[in-house]
């Protein structure tokens, strides 16, 4: 098992909050340098959300709603009333009046504070959808738009027909976007596997994909070892679960750009 595959399994446990001690610290350290693993962790947390959302059951009792709203109201701190002097002097009554004024002022501040918090929560919620889409777009587009992105075009080793693949790889972030078209249909239980071919050492798995009915396919940010230097990219046909090493001849290979 490669080091990267081991992280992949630990990431699933991390997403479940089930990784502790040294194992967790090791993954934490790796996450600081590996963008692909951070992205995979976010995906795995999204997967756990699906599991969570599958829980169905009765609605919470009505008292729970009131309990929360009461707690929220208590959270707004109303200053304690100052104890008035026991002496019933004229000055004492003035003290009471002043205290009442302070309490009224504090209550109005509390109402304003509550309204502002309510607005903040609602605004955060409303804006989330748009911002999330933008973030996702930026994340996907980053490797294509960066000037230092390495661009490799892959063509068929045997022509025709003319399948073509384009890999956009940003080594510093471990980001890879791969787009292919005119890919021939595959036999059952088979898939294409993309390989990152380093300057030295064995090919590194860079994602398994199947083309759609029109022969188009894509791979976005597969898990890759941090800082892997790509000499080129290549494609083979493998079992659909993917293979840790190529088992068939190279079908397509990078020609540089």
């Amino acid at each position: 098992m490669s080091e990267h595959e081991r992280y992949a399994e630990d990431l699933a446990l991390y997403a479940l909050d089930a990784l502790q001690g040294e194992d967790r610290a090791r993954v934490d350290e790796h996450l600081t340098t590996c963008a692909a693993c951070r992205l995979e962790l976010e995906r795995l947390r999204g997967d756990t959300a699906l599991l969570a959302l599958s829980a169905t059951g009765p609605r919470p009792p009505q008292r729970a709603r009131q309990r929360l709203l009461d707690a929220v109201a208590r959270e707004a701190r109303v200053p304690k009333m100052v104890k008035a002097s026991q002496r019933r002097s004229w000055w004492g009554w003035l003290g009471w009046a002043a205290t009442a004024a302070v309490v009224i002022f504090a209550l109005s501040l509390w109402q304003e504070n509550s309204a502002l918090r309510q607005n903040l929560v609602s605004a955060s919620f409303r804006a989330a959808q748009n911002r999330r889409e933008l973030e996702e777009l930026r994340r996907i587009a980053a490797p294509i738009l960066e000037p230092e992105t390495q661009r490799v075009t892959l063509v068929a080793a045997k022509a025709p027909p003319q399948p073509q693949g384009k890999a956009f790889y940003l080594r510093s972030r471990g980001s890879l976007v791969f787009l292919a078209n005119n890919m021939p249909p595959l036999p059952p239980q088979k898939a294409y596997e993309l390989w990152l071919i380093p300057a030295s050492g064995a090919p590194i798995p860079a994602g398994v994909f199947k083309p759609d009915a029109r022969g188009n396919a894509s791979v976005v940010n597969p898990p890759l070892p941090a800082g892997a230097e790509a000499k080129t990219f290549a494609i083979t046909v493998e079992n659909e679960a993917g293979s840790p090493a190529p088992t068939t001849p190279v079908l397509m290979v990078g020609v540089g750009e």
Partner: protein
Amino acid sequence: MAELYDRYSSVVYAVALRVLGDTGAAEDVLQEVFLQLWRRPGAFDAARGSLGSWLAVITRNRAIDSLRKRRPETDIEDVVLSVAPDLAADAERTRAAEKVRGVMGGMAPAQRSALEMAYWEGMSHSEIANKTGEPLGTVKTRIRTGLIALRKAFQS
């Protein structure tokens, strides 16, 4: 807050109740999760996926902490999700829940049970391995591939 509560409390309560199996303890987690959102509205933002999914994950983690009587391992601000469905509406959630149950039902029994023990009981992979007598690596693989099977079902 009342509006958000009305929209998401049934998701939060269902998750807490599924983990804890006790209505009183589930109400406590429900209260804690919404108070955290109230105190730190900025903890949820754009990068954290949909609010419904985020709340569901936070709730599950807090319920497991409560079940296992341990301190929270992950701060809510560190919980970042990729895009996942919001599923605030009951009808959408019911459909998604059926889909998840379908995928789980299609898994090998050993894989389904490993994933359920890890997710709903908060068992570590070593605890699951001890209980089932399977190798640690097998348990780890089952958990990961189970999660990815769910992802694929919602992508297609």
